[in-house]
């Protein structure tokens, strides 16, 4: 029995300490993901708190055939989605994309962070699939499970997303070259 399995078993019996230890390694990664999916850093923190609470509350329904991180991400995706819906209902389109939490958490550099570019060109679901694939190194099967989609849908959309991102990067490079050439 590995440590994660033992911690899950203890947490299922109601041990908060075991659960806290179980999710310790996932918290920062989850928060980083939620920062990309919410409209403010405070919302991302709230979404993280809700995710962990829901995970603990429904831990007994966790099926060990899935990776624990996949299950956690599925809860986080749902929480982020409901939080975005609430934000849209409350403030409509007033949120300025340029000053979102993702932009605030990235140090200024010469090159634009690819996840900001991805946010511009990809829809929410495909963006999440890309994040899980390249930031979390999840398998396509796990991504499909986390998104509640088929494996073939996930494969096709990951490929398309890469092509879109490549095209967007090519466009921005050409713009940069053109602006350099014309001063």
């Amino acid at each position: 029995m590995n440590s994660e399995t033992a911690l899950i078993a203890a947490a299922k019996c109601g041990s908060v300490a075991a659960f806290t230890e179980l999710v310790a390694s996932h918290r920062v990664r989850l928060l980083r993901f939620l920062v990309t999916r919410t409209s403010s850093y405070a919302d991302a923190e709230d979404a993280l708190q809700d995710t962990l609470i829901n995970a603990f509350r429904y831990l007994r329904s966790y099926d060990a055939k899935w990776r624990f991180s996949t299950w956690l991400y599925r809860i986080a995706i749902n929480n982020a989605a409901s939080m975005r819906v609430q934000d849209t209902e409350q403030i409509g389109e007033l949120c300025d994309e340029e000053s979102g939490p993702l932009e605030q958490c990235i140090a200024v550099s010469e090159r634009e962070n690819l996840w900001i570019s991805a946010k511009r060109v990809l829809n929410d679901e495909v963006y999440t699939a890309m994040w899980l694939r390249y930031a979390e190194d999840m398998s396509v099967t796990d991504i499909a499970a986390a998104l509640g989609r088929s494996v073939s849908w996930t494969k096709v959309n990951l490929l398309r997303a890469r092509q879109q991102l490549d095209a967007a990067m090519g466009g921005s490079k050409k713009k940069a070259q053109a602006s350099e050439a014309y001063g």
Partner: protein
Amino acid sequence: MDKLAQQLREDANSIEVDVSPQLDARIRASLAGVRQETGRTSSGSTGRAPFWWASSLTGIAATVAIISVINLGEPDPEPAITQPPPQQFTMPQFTFKPKAAILTESLQQELDAIQSDLKKAEQVIKDDFDKIGI
């Protein structure tokens, strides 16, 4: 790993976030108050099965007993006797004798005569209905 994948990973890691001590305390406090939901386990479902079987069987047995008691207590109903309808309710056959109108008087007089004939015919029909009791 290709260049794009490498760049995506690096850019993801460059997003600086941290779980603050305040957030950590908030999460711990929330977790302490959470009551775990009971998942649907196989032991739970098998534990309930005998109860459902027992209640279903009791219900079926009670229904059968009630139906039996009702059927045994009551005598068989007598067959309903249907009588043919009385003859007087059958519609009588009327024989109409149409006659061609011959205009021998002025139109107004003819109209009066036709209306008078019509009244007489109505009276005859009424009398016929009275005879048969409708």
